[in-house]
């Protein structure tokens, strides 16, 4: 929650180190502003990303996720992102079927030169997640919003 009591989502952003991570860097060094809601996890390639990481992010209380890799055809490892694409499509299908709103899962491509686009992507992702509100966890019990806040087990 921000000062105006509006919901500020926490988004786990998995960025490919060869493109989107560099794009985030570029956005920063070009002083393009974008929302501070993402928590970046740098991955060597989206193809390396175990879909479990996304499920685990929700398990641990991320309000949404953003995965961004190289554009198809531009992968540093030739075809890592093409494998990843299928995986994310399937994961997305399953998560939506299980009742996780589509807006929480954001997959996209973003090259190293697209600093501006990256900022736009983050804005869109934050917008999307804001639409569906805070993530209540798979158990519907919610997570404490403040980082570091303690949750003491009720017994």
């Amino acid at each position, binding site marked *: 929650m921000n000062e105006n009591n509006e919901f500020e989502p926490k988004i786990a952003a998995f960025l490919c180190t060869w493109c989107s991570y560099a794009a985030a860097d570029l956005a920063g060094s070009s002083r393009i502003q974008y929302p501070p809601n993402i928590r970046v996890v740098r991955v060597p390639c989206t193809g390396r990303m175990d879909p479990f990481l996304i*499920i685990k992010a929700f*398990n641990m209380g991320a309000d949404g996720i953003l995965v961004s890799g190289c554009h198809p055809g531009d992968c540093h490892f030739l075809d890592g992102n*093409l494998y990843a694409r299928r*995986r994310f499509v*399937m994961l997305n299908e*399953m998560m939506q*079927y299980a009742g996780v709103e589509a807006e929480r899962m*954001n997959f996209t491509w973003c090259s190293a030169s697209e600093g501006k686009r990256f900022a736009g992507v983050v804005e*869109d992702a934050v917008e999307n997640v804001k639409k569906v509100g805070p993530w209540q966890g798979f*158990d519907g019990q919610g997570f404490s919003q403040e980082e570091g806040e303690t949750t003491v087990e009720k017994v």
Partner: protein
Amino acid sequence: MKKYEKITEEIVEIAEKLLKENTVEKVIGFGIGIFTEEVTPIFISNPENADRLVFNSKAEMSLAKYLLNYKDQKVAIVAKPCDSRAIATYLAEDLIKRENIKVIGINGCPGIENNTACEECDIRNAVISDYTVGKKMTEEEIEAKLKDKEDKIEKMTPAERMEYFQKEFERCTRCYACREACYVCYCEQCFTEGNQPEWVGDSVKLNDNFTYHLMRAMHMAGRCVNCGACEMACPEGIDVRALAAKMCRSAEELFDYRAGIDSDQKTLLSDYDVNDTESGFME
């Protein structure tokens, strides 16, 4: 029902022959327990015992998984059409040797009692077999058997779906029967077993139960043949199959892919096409 008896007779005949001729050391099939009338997997190595083999509407287990215990032995296996698809996947994933197994494939599978997967099943003939029993079902016959049941979960709103699955997975005791009964789950170390990283917590809590089922379903993407063994095994009557079945439907709709159709195919996620769909991606 006559169909089952006919199949049983044929299975016994083939098994006896295989064992007598020493073509195989062991026949993996269905039998009846000593104390109960329940169907149970049996392993026959003496041709005299071949008549213990049966096939009836309660033969719900997926026998394919036992093949992994006999990787270097010559064995024959009684395979329902769904099991034969499982065997095809094993062959595709290079887990077993084709020359070591003899598949007694059941054609025109009449289905298993209480198994809802059978109502959705449209592959009722063995896809891979050395010997066949039963009568091949034609397209029309299969069509007629299919129950045109719409998936009730698909029609729900996300919130309702979430609630549905929460209600299901809340009962999960994490006995892992679904995992062990499933032919896909042959990993030497399951992701639930390691603690570095710890994907799911040890305690049985809804959040972790849900995570476990999602992760398992993700592992099944493009490999599940929708046989329903997980659902039959679940002691708590959880709709375990729903997620995996959805993956099967999605794979077919989006990638025109079906698992276990032939033994040379690449699995869904170990392959790609440059023109693959980007359904669900951001603009």
